[in-house]
């Protein structure tokens, strides 16, 4: 394979990994607080649709981007109400959120299928984009990609150096001890859910505003679930999530290229690739570190009045 093919492929890798990266980071934040949110797929879908809708209505992609985050927060607040207030089962509530979110986005989006909306386009970073090879791969993208480069260090700082971030982790590890230490468990879990949902919504916005620029039914196509898997692959660390997301971006980009090149492989098998890879990656990372990297209280509700 020569560089003329390889470099655009790697650039496409970063581009198609970015929506999954936002969603994975969102799920990491939520899970760190001890709440399992399996609704990522649904939240990404409503995020993608609201971004598309706002961009089409106002013409402003940045407004649309923020709107997707806010709608993502609204969507996950359902999960918060069911699990934090009403003690519902977190696994099943997340599934319900996926059903509801995907259904809602497809339902409201029906009149828009196949239409376009203004979105982000590539902006070459002055200077950096001139670096041979690397410039083309990393610094000739839309602003949402650049923003995603900044997130892992910011999140690292948040989890290790800020009071809220440390409190969030404490609540995820041992809610009873955190409460004894004077932390407000419910409030910190709400923060984990809402901030996480904001990022999941942004992930959806990346899909409709930067990746496709047009609305189709079931736009997310399982990326939300892949994000849930990547959290485990990343051992709940934002930095590792970047590599996970790009790995998947790479497979998706490669699969599209192979289909377009008319390779002698069935398209069904190519489409299967990202999901099969998710399973393989999950098996290896789980066998390697077992489950000790997970927040100890993940998925466990805190009883009222406790």
């Amino acid at each position, binding site marked *: 394979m020569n560089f003329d093919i390889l470099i655009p492929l790697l650039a496409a890798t970063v581009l198609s990994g970015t929506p999954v990266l936002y969603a994975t980071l969102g799920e990491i934040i939520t899970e760190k607080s001890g709440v399992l949110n*399996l609704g990522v797929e*649904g939240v990404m879908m409503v995020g993608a649709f609201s971004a598309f809708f706002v961009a089409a209505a106002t013409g402003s992609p940045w407004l649309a981007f923020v709107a997707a985050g806010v709608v993502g927060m609204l969507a996950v607040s*359902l999960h918060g*109400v*069911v699990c934090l*207030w*009403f*003690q*519902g*089962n977190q*696994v*099943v*509530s997340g*599934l*319900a*959120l*996926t*059903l*509801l*979110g*995907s*259904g*809602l986005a*497809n*339902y*409201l989006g*029906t009149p828009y299928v196949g239409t376009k909306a203004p979105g982000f386009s590539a902006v070459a970073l002055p200077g950096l984009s001139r670096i041979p090879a690397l410039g083309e791969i990393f610094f000739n993208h839309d602003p949402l990609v650049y923003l995603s480069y900044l997130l892992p260090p910011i999140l690292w700082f948040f989890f290790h150096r800020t009071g809220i971030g440390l409190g969030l982790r404490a609540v995820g590890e041992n809610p009873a001890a955190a409460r004894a230490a004077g932390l407000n468990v419910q409030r910190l879990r709400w923060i984990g859910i809402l901030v996480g949902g904001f990022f999941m919504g942004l992930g959806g916005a990346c899909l409709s505003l930067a990746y496709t620029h047009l609305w189709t*039914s079931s736009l997310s196509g*399982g990326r939300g*679930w892949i994000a*849930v*898997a990547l959290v*485990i692959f990343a051992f709940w660390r934002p930095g590792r999530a970047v590599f996970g997301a790009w790995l998947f971006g790479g497979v998706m980009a490669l699969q599209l290229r192979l289909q377009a090149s008319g390779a002698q492989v*069935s398209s*069904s*098998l190519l*489409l*299967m690739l990202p*999901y*099969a890879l*998710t*399973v393989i990656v*999950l*098996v290896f990372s*789980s*066998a390697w570190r*077992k*489950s000790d990297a997970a927040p100890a209280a993940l998925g466990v509700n805190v*009883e*009222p*009045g406790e």
Partner: protein
Amino acid sequence: MQLQILKRTRRISFQGAVAVFVSAILLSLFFSGVLLSLGGTPPLAGFTTLFQGGFGSRWALEDSVLKAIPIFLCSLGVAVAFRLKVWNIGAEGQYALGAIGATGVAIAFPDWPSWAVLPLMALSAACAGGIWGLIPALLRQKMHTNEIIVTLMFNYIAVYLLQYLVLGVWRDPNSHGFAVSATFSDAAIIGPLSGATSIHWGLVHCIVLGILLLLFFRYTRIGYEIRAAGENMNAARYAGIRVDFLVCLVIAISGGLAGWAGFVEVSATVNQLQPAMLVGYGYTAIVVAWLARLNPAGIAVASFLLAGLRVGVESLQLDLQVPADFGDILEGSILLMVLAAGLFLEYRIVRKGRT
């Protein structure tokens, strides 16, 4: 006035539980009604069409029963796994594998008589679905992978596997380019109960399998062990119950039932393998299992109700041009409301100071 949440000391009465569920479902219908009017459909007319279409005529009721058959079987499987807190989200994929397994037999033996080919199709379907469930279970027990994600990924893989087969080796040469397998021989088709109805023998499969499962849980040692381990897995382990084995067994049964559903559907309803038969029964089955609190009799009722909603959504689509995705919204919001309503079954809310 301050409120306090207290754990119930006595179990809620049956009437109380029904009242809680009915109000949860009414609330979610209200929410979906708001969405209907947002989409430009008058909610009252919408719900009339929905319920008339799902339950309002003999034809509608028969169609609801027909759709309830695969949902019931999948949901029975989901409930078996959920009992042991094994989160098998893969009913959709196991159902697809069942359909593939049954089709393989039907295509391989086109001249066999019914009494030979149908049992073999059922066996092959149940095995295919069971193995599709067993792989994630083995990965969970041996490699500590999360079965929720693996079973879900297996759904996507199964969809593309089915597509691959009907686009490739099993494609009917006379299909004019459509991705479908050859139509089954008459012997490989499960027929209707009588000439007067469209309801087929799959209903009898449901009843028999449901009763067998009930007997298995109530009267066998393994069934008892599964119930005990579902209550408290660690305690069961200390008591010498082979939990690892039970997890694998339970998910094999679960996948087998979903596979059986795939067999019934492909044989009785579609008569050939085609991607359009994957309409999300496996996901509806999860909603049904949770609505019924994993109870088999409840699953029978809930699968009929949700099947009716699916049929009703079809007439909404035909008569009022409401997108079919409205069905997902209905199911998702019903599930969320019922989850939230669960609080009132476990806890009671009182004014502070009283107990």
